[in-house]
């Protein structure tokens, strides 16, 4: 099967400091791929580069047959790559529904009724509070909104950056269940997650990053069994 996303020897630098030092990875259609690693390993930098917010210093990004290295962020989402950013980044001084409509910005003046209904079915709390300011939502609800917003553009690949960060255990479970449901519905997902246990349980394939390089890769099951991964990320040994 041809990869939906393939990254070759990607390098990204902030000024002279190189944050991503030549990583290569692939995401096949329908797969859930996890990107693991400690803080500062380069996970978020990688996602921000894929969605065009950062420019690579070297390497190639191919998405659905198109080269993305030089494409501006606002065109990349049109190609079908949605990025649900770290720390949720909802628009706080807009209503929930306005946030969702912005998620569908690239769809112009299309009727969004069915998509809004679907979002509210998936997250009933968003429907109940659709005309409230998004800034008033709790952290977990904001994460739901961020995911629902990213889905509004009907992406071919959904990138989720630490969706469970800073949430209560119950809320974390709920968000991870949502990711599992999206996966089961056939959504292609690239997941950055600090909860390695949960991420590996979900992932078809996973990459472990350390200071900008991939140190281990394999299927979720392989990595769950891997000594080094167990020691470093699952708090064992």
């Amino acid at each position, binding site marked *: 099967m041809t990869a939906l996303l393939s990254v070759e020897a990607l390098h990204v630098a902030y000024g002279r400091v190189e944050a991503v030092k030549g990583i290569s990875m692939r995401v096949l259609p329908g797969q859930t791929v996890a990107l693991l690693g400690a803080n500062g390993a380069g996970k978020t930098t990688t996602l921000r580069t894929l969605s065009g917010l950062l420019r690579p210093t070297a390497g190639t990004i191919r998405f659905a047959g198109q080269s993305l290295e030089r494409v501006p962020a*606002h065109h990349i*989402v049109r190609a079908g790559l949605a*990025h649900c*950013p770290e720390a949720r*980044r909802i628009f706080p001084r807009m209503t929930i529904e306005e946030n969702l409509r912005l998620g569908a910005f690239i769809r112009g003046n299309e009727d969004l009724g069915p998509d809004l209904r679907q979002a509210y079915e998936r997250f009933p709390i968003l429907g109940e509070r659709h005309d409230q300011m998004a800034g008033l939502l709790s952290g977990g609800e904001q994460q739901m909104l961020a995911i629902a917003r990213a889905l509004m553009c009907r992406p071919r690949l959904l990138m989720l950056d630490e969706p469970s960060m800073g949430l209560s255990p119950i809320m974390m479970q709920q968000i991870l269940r949502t990711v599992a449901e999206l996966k089961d519905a056939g959504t292609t997902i690239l997941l950055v997650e600090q909860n390695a246990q949960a991420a590996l349980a979900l992932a078809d394939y996973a990459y472990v990053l350390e200071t900008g390089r991939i140190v281990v890769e394999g299927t979720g099951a392989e990595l769950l069994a891997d000594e080094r991964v167990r020691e470093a990320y699952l708090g064992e040994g």
Partner: protein
Amino acid sequence: MSVTVLLQLVENGLVLGAMYGLIAVGYTMVYGTIQLINFAHGEIFMLGGFGALTVYAWIPGVAHLPLLAALPLMLLGGVVVAVAAAVGAERLAYRPLRAAPRLAPLITAIGLSLALQQVVSLWYRLPGGGNAKAPVAFPSFGGKAFNLGGVLVQRADLFTVIAAAVCMAALAWFVARTRSGRAMQATAQDPDTARLMGIDPDRMIVVAFAVGAALAAVAALTQGLRYGQISFDMGFVAGLKAFTAAVLGGIGNVRGAMLGGIVLGLAEELSSGILAHFRDTAQYGQAWADVWAFVLLILVLLLRPQGLLGERVADRA
């Protein structure tokens, strides 16, 4: 001091404030999208006035129309000139400096402000060969003022208030109800995330400059009608006052800009008018009007730095 005199001051203040507010929106929208204080915005306002005058003076027949019929044409001319100048300035002067340190575009804006003044002063020509080195006459409503129980409301005052109300209603509708307006708000709240939604930040910046310029052109038309003249340097004080109004209302906040304008207009008229009324303080009246306006600015900056409707303290210079 009679109630009528006081009400007359309030009337003057509201009209002046409506005009400040119209200009202030331009400062606040541009600041909201790229955190730039566009110090050339006063000159965009001035160019709007000259654009309107050009239609009146140079297009045959317009000067012979009844003023109410000529106004839409003049307004169109003013808006076209102001928007073209603002969008051109953004493209040629500010966009190349987008990645430069904050001070560079600020100084560019001041330079642009001086340059635009000089261009008009040196090269503007009236049909008879007259130039714009001195103030030039602007058409005004003839006719008597309306008398509301002793308070005189000039025709131009009425026009100013109606124009400001229509503009603000249209702006509120644009920001809250249209796709572009929501995209603009999104860009102001979180530029990176707005890009992830597929919003082109460059386009939103152009829209902010254009909308601000159009409202400034409306303000210039009202100023010309009220005072019967315009001048190449009229943007300096008006721009400074409007900037004050924008800061007063909370820079980045569109409703705040209008409120700030009205508060500033009222404060200026009431303080100078009341002081002028009493013999002991008369010398601190009209001549000191600008002083009182800026004293108000200093007080607000000391006591409520985020402005009247500001939601966050300015964390970015």
